[in-house]
Each structure stands twice: as structure tokens, then as C-alpha cells.
């Protein structure tokens, strides 16, 4: 059996083909890594105007019923109960050891919560959430909805909304009723749009017909999110990494850090009180040579960590990376060596994002 025989397709599969998308397996789906314009052009176009992304492989679900927010808080240190209607927030699902099971978005839609989880983790996340629900709260997966992101500085004028950054609500685009949030994974302003699968292609075509909107593949999505300093689950986050090590302490609500009533709280509390041995940092290699994931990081000849995501940043015009280093080597501008093909490539620990965020706060 080959991969292609078991790969799932999104509702935009035929559109990708028509647009000349180069399809690759990703998280069990056949997804476009790029279109004929290429990763560099798609990346730069998204920062200059607008890029359209099919992210329908991601998991969407609703959590419905009295006490849904409190139930979800058993698994996440995010403050879900304080989330106001029409607002969305980034959070982490944790395990007993304080490790990250997934990162996700949760939104308050008034009468229910709306969740978006990673494609590669939905088969783990949804049963996990299901397992902590009290009677009266139900989890409803939404496999019949597609997810389309449109990102870039042109989006605000193309699709005017009342939403501010991390706002969410029902709007109409080209006569199609959708659920849109002003958020994304590129560091740019833009929308993430949940739409019924049978309306997804019509919506995508309407968006692509707007001036300055270019189809953008997973390749540019990856370089855009890396420049924005945003984590990719499976690369930068995993079940052995705590929110403190991942430098995602900001995603844990203040109230949650007084109550400590989420799974893995003991470990997270210990990491906050006593410090961590390693920390996620940004890394700027000197010169033009990129350092990829799994590159060993050394300082004074000793291994002190590993790159988890790395590549060339088209907007930065130089290689960029993130990874984990020993706490005492994690200060900005600390000199480190990246072991690329047996040679030490000099690099510096760098603040993130590498390219400034341009959210509509």
C-alpha cells in the first residue's frame, strides 16, 4: 500500500489541481506544498498583499453545554472561562507530565465553544477532551467543515469586518455565511474562515477572484510562521516539552496559575518556580546557509540543544531557526554553533519574531 492510496483530500482538492498545486502528503492529507509561483514568491506575496491557504485538514469541533469551559480547563492552563463571547484564544492541551499534547485555538461563540486543533493530533485530542467531559457537555467534531485562511495586509480592505485581532463571528463573504476569526499563522493580519465543506470551493474561488489574492501552499505557510516565531506541533512542541520550556507561559491564564487545577499542573508549577533546564529560543545563523530541524547546537564544543525548525526566511532575507538550548545559553545574542554537515556554523540566539507581527489589535 502506498501513501497516496490512504491519503485524505480536502474539499479544495480539485481546485488545488486546477491551480497547479504540487501535492504532498501532510498529516494524512494530500496538501499543496506550493503552486507554480513557488514558495518564495508565495511567501513574499502574502506579506505584501494576501495569500490564500487551505487548512481544511485541521480539526474543528464544538463543545456544547453548561460547564464546557470549566471541563476544557481540566486539560489546559488557558483561561477559557474568562473568554468573552466573540473572542478566541490560543491554548495548550497538557498531559500528566505537563507535556504538550497539542496547541489549539478556542473561541467563545456565546452558546458553545469552537475549537481548532492540529490535523496530526485531532485523533488524540478529541478522545482526550471527550474523556474529561461531565454529563451535559458534548463534543461535536465538525468533519463537514472546511477551513480557509486568508492572510496579509490587503485582507482588511478586501473583507471589511468589525472583528479585531482574535475576534470571531459569523459574517458573509460573497453571499456565503461563514464563521471567521481575525487570526492566523503568518504574523500578518487576516482571517481564518470556517465554512461548510460544500461551500468551500465557491468561497475559495470568490476569495481568489479578489485583487491581490494568491494561492499559497504549506511551504510558504511554514516559512511565514517560522519568521513570525510561531510553533509547529511535532517540530517545536511535543509531549515531552512543558509550556515553560516552550516559552509559552503567556498562554497560561493568571487565574489558572493561582488555582493549579489542570492536568500536569505540578510539573508546570515546578518549572515556573524552580526554572527549566532548556528553553525555546530564536536563532539567527550567520551567513546564508540555513540550519534545519534536528541540527545539534553546541557551545564551546559541548552539545547544548537542538534546532526544531529552521530554514530560509524570505522576508528576513537570511536563514532563521528556532530550537531548544540550555537555560544558561538562552540569552539574546548568546553565541552558539550549529553543527551542519559536520561543520560548526556560527549563530546567535535572537529575539522572535524575526519579522514583526502586524496584527489588527
Amino acid at each position, binding site marked *: 500500500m502506498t501513501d497516496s492510496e490512504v491519503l485524505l483530500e480536502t474539499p479544495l482538492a480539485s481546485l488545488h489541481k486546477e491551480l497547479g498545486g504540487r501535492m504532498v502528503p501532510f498529516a494524512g492529507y494530500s496538501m499543496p*506544498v506550493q503552486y507554480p509561483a513557488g*514558495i518564495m*514568491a508565495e511567501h513574499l506575496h502574502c506579506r505584501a498583499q494576501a495569500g490564500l491557504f487551505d487548512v481544511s485538514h485541521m480539526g474543528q469541533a464544538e463543545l456544547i453545554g453548561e460547564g464546557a469551559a470549566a471541563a476544557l480547563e481540566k486539560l489546559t492552563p488557558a483561561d477559557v472561562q474568562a473568554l468573552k463571547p466573540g473572542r478566541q484564544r490560543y491554548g495548550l492541551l497538557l498531559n500528566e507530565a505537563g507535556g504538550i499534547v497539542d496547541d489549539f485555538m478556542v473561541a467563545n461563540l456565546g452558546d458553545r465553544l469552537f475549537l481548532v486543533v492540529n490535523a496530526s493530533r485531532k485523533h488524540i485530542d478529541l478522545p482526550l477532551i471527550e474523556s474529561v467531559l461531565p454529563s451535559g457537555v458534548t463534543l461535536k467534531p465538525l468533519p463537514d467543515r472546511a477551513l480557509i485562511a486568508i492572510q496579509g495586509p490587503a485582507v482588511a480592505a478586501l473583507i471589511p469586518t468589525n472583528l479585531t485581532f482574535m475576534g470571531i463571528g459569523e459574517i458573509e463573504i460573497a453571499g456565503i455565511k461563514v464563521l471567521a476569526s481575525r487570526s492566523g499563522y503568518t504574523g500578518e493580519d487576516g482571517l481564518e474562515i470556517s465554512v461548510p465543506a460544500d461551500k468551500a470551493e465557491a468561497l475559495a474561488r470568490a476569495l481568489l477572484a479578489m485583487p491581490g489574492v494568491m494561492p499559497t501552499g504549506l511551504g510558504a505557510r511554514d516559512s511565514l510562521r517560522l519568521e513570525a516565531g510561531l510553533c509547529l506541533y511535532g517540530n517545536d512542541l511535543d509531549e515531552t516539552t512543558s509550556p515553560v520550556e516552550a516559552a509559552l507561559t503567556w498562554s497560561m491564564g493568571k487565574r489558572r496559575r493561582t488555582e493549579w487545577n489542570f492536568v500536569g499542573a505540578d510539573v508546570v508549577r515546578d518549572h515556573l518556580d524552580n526554572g527549566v533546564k532548556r528553553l525555546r529560543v530564536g536563532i539567527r545563523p550567520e551567513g546564508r*546557509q*540555513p540550519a534545519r530541524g534536528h541540527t545539534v547546537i553546541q557551545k564551546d564544543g559541548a552539545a547544548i540543544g537542538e534546532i526544531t525548525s529552521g530554514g*530560509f526566511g524570505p522576508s528576513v532575507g537570511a536563514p532563521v531557526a528556532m530550537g531548544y538550548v540550555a537555560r544558561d545559553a538562552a540569552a539574546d545574542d548568546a553565541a552558539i554553533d550549529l553543527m551542519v554537515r559536520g561543520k560548526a556554523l556560527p549563530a546567535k540566539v535572537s529575539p522572535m519574531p524575526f519579522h514583526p507581527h502586524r496584527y489588527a489589535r
Partner: protein
Amino acid sequence: MSEMKFSKDHEWIRMEGGVATIGITDHAQNALGDVVFVDLPETGRVVTSGEAVAVVESVKAASDVYAPINGKIVEVNAALVDDPAKINVEPTGEGWFFKIELDGELPDDLMDADGYAAYVDTLG
């Protein structure tokens, strides 16, 4: 100018007076995508056919470039270091990688343009 030959590793070879100019094919640059970095060999290095001698990196991935013949590296295209995009724009011209002074005969398995085109078709 002599006929261009091609390797199964997607290098092209153009022989002129015992020296082969070598680069990657249009198919290879297209598969790689936008090239952002090249690591070229030292001149004077003696190489054997199939040996990894250069590295080419696109936004997404790194790939080795192999010596398609035995011989000695006599020149490298230093202009690629500052402008690696030449490899995408003109892979069989300004985007050449290095020159090897041939030692012995050309390997039998090098293909002509039609043979290489047929080979690429078999890769799907």
C-alpha cells in the same frame, strides 16, 4: 559546443577539451524550488563519480550535488554564492556549479537529452 549529457542524479555535463562544466538540470531546479544557498567544493579536490561534492539548499530543503565523473575540480562558479537564484533562472547556463578535469573516460550510463527526458518521465 559539445552535446550536453545527463546523469541519473540530475546533473548535466558539457565537455570542452577534457574539462566538463557541470550543473543541475532544469527538472532538478524545478523540483527543489527557490535556491537560497550553495556550498561549492574546493578547487583542486580530486573527486570520483557519485561522490557528494556540493550542497544546494532551497527554502524548504537541502540536497547534495554529486560529481557525475571522475576527475579534479578545476573551477567553481563563485557567483552562485551571492546570487544562488541563478540556478533557478538559468540552470544550464549561468547557473553552472563547477568544472571537472576528466580523469579517464566518461561513464557509460550518462544519457543524452532524449534519454534523460525519458528517464524523468519514469520518475512520475
